[in-house]
C-alpha cells in the first residue's frame, strides 16, 4: 500500500510515545547509570567506565547461562512452531467443534506464569503427580529435582504445553484468512496436499508466523517464573537461565553494577536475534515472490 507523507501523523503517535517513554526511557537510563558506576554505600557513586561490562563479558557462569538459554529457546521454537502449524491444519473449520477447540486450546495461555509452574510441579512429582507417577509405574525413575535431563524435559514440556496454543491460534487465524478460491485453484491444478501447504498456505501464513516466531523467541529467551517455580534453576545450575541469574544478582545480591551491565548486554542479544529472525523471514518471503 502506498502511504501518504504526513508529519502530522506524529500527533497520533504522541500518546504511545509518552506512555512507553515513561516506562522505558527513565528506567533504562537508571540501568545505564548503574552499569558504569560503583557504590560504596551511603549514596556515594564512583564512575568506573566499562569495568562492569568487562567483568560480565568474561564471566564463565554467564557464558554457560547464555548457552543454556540459546539451547532452550532453540528447542522450544523447533518444537512449538512445526507442532503449532500442524495442529492448526487439523483444526475443524466449521461447526460447533470450532469454538470448543479454540477455548480448550487457549486455556493454557491464560494461566499465570507461577500457576503454570505450580501445575507442572503437581503434575510431574513422582509421589502425587500424574506424569511422574505414571512414569514410575512404567519403570522410569522420573525425578526433575535431581536429574538435570529430567529437569530439562519438564521445563521444555511445560513451555510447549503453555505456548504451543499461541502458535496454533495465530496460524489458525492465518489459515482462515485464505480465500476458498485459492484451494479450488489448487484442486483444479491437481496439487498434492504438500504442494497446497507449501505454495498456498505457508506463504499466506508469513505474517502470523513472523509474530509467532518473534513472540515465542522473546518470551522463551526471557523466561523466568516457570523454571524458577518448578526447579529454582537447579539441579545444580542445569536450568539456571539468564533471567534467573540476573534477578539473583540484582535483587538478592544487590550487585547493581554488574547486574545493570548484564541487563544491557542481555537486551542487546535479544534485539540482535530478533532482528536476525525478522530479516530472515522477510528475505524468505521475497524469495518466494520471485
Amino acid at each position, binding site marked *: 500500500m502506498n502511504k501518504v507523507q504526513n508529519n502530522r501523523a506524529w500527533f497520533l503517535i504522541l500518546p504511545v510515545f509518552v506512555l512507553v517513554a515513561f516506562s522505558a526511557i527513565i528506567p533504562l537510563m537508571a540501568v545505564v547509570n548503574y552499569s558504569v558506576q560503583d557504590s560504596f554505600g551511603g549514596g556515594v557513586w564512583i564512575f568506573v567506565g566499562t569495568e562492569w561490562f568487562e567483568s560480565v563479558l568474561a564471566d564463565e557462569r554467564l557464558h554457560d547461562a547464555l548457552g543454556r538459554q540459546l539451547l532452550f529457546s532453540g528447542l522450544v521454537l523447533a518444537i512449538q512452531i512445526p507442532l503449532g502449524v500442524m495442529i492448526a491444519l487439523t483444526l475443524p473449520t466449521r461447526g460447533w467443534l470450532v469454538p470448543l477447540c*479454540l477455548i480448550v486450546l487457549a486455556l493454557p495461555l491464560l494461566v499465570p506464569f507461577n500457576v503454570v509452574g505450580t501445575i507442572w510441579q503437581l503434575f510431574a512429582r513422582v509421589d502425587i503427580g500424574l506424569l511422574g507417577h505414571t512414569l514410575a509405574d512404567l519403570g522410569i525413575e522420573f525425578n526433575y529435582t535431581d536429574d538435570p535431563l529430567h529437569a530439562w524435559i519438564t521445563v521444555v514440556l511445560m513451555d510447549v504445553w503453555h505456548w504451543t496454543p499461541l502458535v496454533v491460534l495465530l496460524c489458525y487465524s492465518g489459515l482462515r484468512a485464505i480465500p476458498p478460491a485459492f484451494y479450488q485453484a489448487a484442486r483444479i491444478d491437481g496439487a498434492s496436499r504438500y504442494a497446497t501447504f507449501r505454495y498456498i498456505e505457508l506463504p499466506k501464513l508469513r505474517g502470523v508466523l513472523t509474530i509467532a516466531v518473534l513472540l515465542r523467541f522473546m518470551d522463551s529467551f526471557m523466561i523466568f517464573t516457570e523454571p524458577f517455580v518448578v526447579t529454582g534453576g537447579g539441579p545444580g545450575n542445569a536450568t539456571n537461565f539468564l533471567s534467573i541469574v540476573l534477578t539473583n544478582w540484582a535483587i538478592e545480591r544487590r550487585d547493581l553494577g554488574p547486574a545493570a551491565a548484564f541487563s544491557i548486554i542481555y537486551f542487546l542479544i535479544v534485539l540482535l536475534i530478533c532482528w536476525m529472525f525478522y530479516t530472515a523471514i522477510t528475505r524468505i518471503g521475497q524469495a518466494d515472490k520471485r
Partner: protein
Amino acid sequence: MKAVRPSGLALTCYLILLMLPLYWLIKMSLQSNEDILGTFSLLPVNPSFDNYITIFTDSSWYLGYVNSLTYVLMNVTIVLLVALPAAYAFSRYRFIGDKHMFFWLLSNRMAPPAVFLLPFFELYHAVGLFDTHIAVALAHCLFNVPLAVWILEGFMSSVPREVDEMAYIDGYSFPRFFVTVFLPLVRNGVGVTAFFCFMYSWIELLMARTLTLTDAKPISVTMTRTISAAGLDWGLLAAAGTLTLIPGALVIWFVRNYIAKGFALGRV
C-alpha cells in the same frame, strides 16, 4: 457419519494431553492436603469445595483476584486507547522517523522484564504510585503497547485506503470517521488485540510483584506468599490456581469468533 480421520485423532490426542495437567489441578483443588499427599488416585478422594470456600471467605485471598482484574482491565483500556490512533498512523502515513519509531516500540517488547525491576521500583516510588493498580497497569504497557500497535497495524493495513477517502469526501471529521466508520471495520483486530493484552497482563508476575505490596497485590503473588508463610497447602494452591483460569476462559469466549474469522496480519 464419516470415519474418524487420522488428523482428527491426532487433534483429539493433543487436546486431551493439553487438558491433563489442568484436570490434575482441578482434581487436587477438590481434595484436602492430607488426601493429596496420602494417596494417589485418578479421581478425587473425598471431594469437597472446602478449598474454594476458604478462598471466597478470606479477603486476603479473594481481593487478589479483584486487584489482578482491576489492573488488567485498566491496562487493556489504556493500551487500546493509545495504540489505536498510533497503529492508524503507522498503517496510513509516512512521516519523519516512522520506521525508527516502530522499531523502538517493538524493542521495548524485547527488554527482559528482569532488567527493569529495580528501576521500576524506584521510579514508581518516586512518583508516588507504588502499590497502586495504575502502577502495574502502566508498567504492563511497556510490553503490551508495542504488541498492540504491531497487531492493530496489521489489521488496519488490510482496510483499503478508499474507505478513508470516501469518508473525507462525505465530510466526516477525523474523530467521527475513526469511531463510526473505521473502528467497526477493524473490530476483529480490536478483539484479538484485547485478548493478547489481557493474556500477557494477566499472566505477568515479576513486575506486578515488584510494584505492589498490599493494596494492589495480585492473586499470583498472594499464591507465592502463602507458600512461604504456611508451608505448602497443595489443595488450596490448586484451588486458587483453578480460579485464575476463569477470567481467561470468559475472555476467550468473547473473542472466539474473531479468531475463527481469520486474520493474515501483514500485507500479501
